[in-house]
Every structure is written in structure tokens, then in C-alpha cells.
């Protein structure tokens, strides 16, 4: 069980759970879209922490995004405590 900080919120996320799924259970206001790595609505920037990333559409998460440590929350599985923030901030 890991702790995820998102803006002013803190919630817990199990390693087999993605950041978006865990946020929804705690009513954390992370934008919810397709939940399948395709639409990019849940794009966030990782400030700190280790994770594994599933398949994400390159149209919404480009190589540049990936180098800048941006992820889609719906495809991000934590392997340590994490801090994420909205991508545009």
C-alpha cells in the first residue's frame, strides 16, 4: 500500500491498482476519461516516486511528455509513495 499526494489531497493506492482507480474510490477530483490509456484526460506529472506505466496512446502522451515524467493516471501503477500534479501546472 502506497501513499499518493495529488495537489492538496493524499490517498492510498495498492501496487496492483492504478492511480486513477484509487483516486476515484477516495473521491479525489482527478479528471476521469476513458480509463484505458487513450483519451489523455487523466494526464498528470510525476513530481516524485517510482511507478510502472502501461500502454498509453502516443497521440496524448508523446515521447516529449514521457521524458518530462508525465503519465496517464489510469495506466500508472505505483511502486513507491508518489506525488503527482496536474500536467498543466
Amino acid at each position, binding site marked *: 500500500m502506497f501513499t499518493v499526494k495529488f495537489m492538496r489531497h493524499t490517498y492510498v493506492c495498492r501496487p496492483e491498482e492504478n492511480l486513477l482507480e484509487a483516486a476515484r474510490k477516495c473521491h479525489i477530483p482527478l479528471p*476521469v*476519461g*476513458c*480509463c*484505458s490509456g*487513450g*483519451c489523455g*484526460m487523466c494526464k498528470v506529472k510525476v513530481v516524485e516516486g517510482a511507478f510502472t506505466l502501461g500502454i498509453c*496512446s502516443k*497521440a496524448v502522451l508523446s515521447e516529449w511528455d514521457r521524458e518530462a515524467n508525465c503519465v496517464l493516471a489510469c495506466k500508472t501503477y505505483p511502486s513507491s509513495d508518489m506525488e503527482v500534479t496536474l500536467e498543466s501546472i
Partner: protein
Amino acid sequence: MGVIRLGRVELRVMDLEKSVDYYTRIIGLEETGRDEERVYLKAWDEYDHHSVILQQADSAGMDHFGFKVKRLEDLDELEKKAEYFGVFTNRLSYGTRLGEGQAVRLELPTGHFVELYHEIEHLGTPMGTLNPHPFPEPEILRGIAPHRLDHVLLTGDDIEAVTRFFIDILDFRQSEKIMTVDGEMMIGSFLFKTNTAHDVAFIKGPDAKLHHAAFFVDNWYDVLKAADILTRNEVPIEVTPTRHGISRGETIYFFDPSGNRNEAFASGYMTYADFPTITWTEDKIGQGIFYHRRALIESFQKALT
């Protein structure tokens, strides 16, 4: 002459085998062929070789959608008319894809690609065309088991221009439109060539994006049953079963494994050649799209592929 109906949609998927499993086992389409990077599928009640093509890609979205035309010569005629309208066209040769003849590919004012085609291999249905039973053997019906691909809804900036193209060049009619409250700008356009409420629709948004591809099921209970199947298989459901004001159809929205939105769509009214265009104003768009909830949800406007 001209366009008969929506014939196919080619979707980009990021994990081909996972997508094939979803479209065959959960949607209930039949795999009819595959080549190096594409898998071809059809619904049980469709006659042609395929209506859905899944293309392995690194992004989600729609490669193109296609309309079957009545005669081979229609390709020449529609190609000329399209070029006169000012859209870019090119030809795809025989056998570019499995089971298909040549096609005219053109780019709409909204940046989407359309293909017009006549030749496609005919596979028929399990019931045949001589004294047929209404349904195939139960073991053939899997998952949601829609009759057919019904329509696609796309987003784009210039809704007026794309509407003009479909009406003036492809001889479609408009069943419904959504206008800004001052009546100045069209922000939604529902277009038909068959007798359904829409074969293709556009709503204002970013160019070249797919909003959803819809499959036709018989009735309200089948929409509910679709919801049960989706939850059983942990498919993300965006909007649970409800009714549309626009089209009067019954609906559920959900996402394929790449995030392409799908719809199981039932009923809806019938259109015909003298069907008048129904107008919705933007302030009533919530009720037009979700008749019971009477409000849009954020993802419905923003989750596009």
C-alpha cells in the same frame, strides 16, 4: 446511385490481441480475417466481409470510416464531385485490405478520412437468405451480439462545412442539428442516408477525433443486458443505460481497451426522404443527449481519441 450505407470503420488499437478479444468475446463480433497488422470483424447479421477493422497502432483513434456505394462507376462520379467541393482525394488499389476492392479515400473538412467503395467480399450470415431463422444458433451469439455497426460520431471545428459536404456531395439528409441559442452557429449535425436517425454525426470539438462508434441492438432490454456484460467483464462504462432526446435512441456508452468509445444503441426513430430537420438549441443540449440526466458530463465532451 451513390452511397448506400455506412459500411465500415477502421479503429486504431494499441494492443491488437487484447482488442480482438474484446470485440469478439464482449461485443460479440466474428473475426473474418487478418493480415500482418489488421484484424477484420463483422457482426452476425451483416453480409459483407467486415464492418470493423482493428489496426495495430501506437495511438488510439479512427483511421477512416467507409460508405458502400451502389455501383462501381459511382466512385468516379463522387470522386469528381468531392474534388470540385475542394477536398483532397486519392485511390486505394484492389486488395489494399483483405476482402476489399478499390476505394476512393478523401479527407473531410473536419480532417477525418472517408472511403467510398463498392467491391467487398460477400460472406453472408449464418441464417442464410432462404427461409431463414430470425437468429443464428445460440452458440454463435456471444457477448452483446449487436446486429450491425450503426453509426459513428466525430468531432470537428467546421460543422457547417462538413454538413454541406454530406448533403451536397454524398446526398445525405440532416435529421437533427444543434444550434447556438442565438441561432448563428451549428454545433451538432446528425446525418442519414439510410432510414436510421443517423449514419454519421458531428459535434463541435477538435478536428479529426473519434467520439464513438455505435453498434445496433434490438431494444431497451438488450441495452441493459449490454451493461450487465460490460460490468461482468470490468469494461469501463461511461454512461449507464439511458435515452437520447436526439434520435430517441436507447443507449449505453463504454470504452474499448484503447479508450475508443463504443455505444450499444437501440431503437431510435425511422427517417425518410421528406423527414424534416429537428432543431435543438445549445441550452437544451443536456436533455438532447441524455434525456433523463438532462446534463452533459465532462468526459463526454473531452474523452476523444
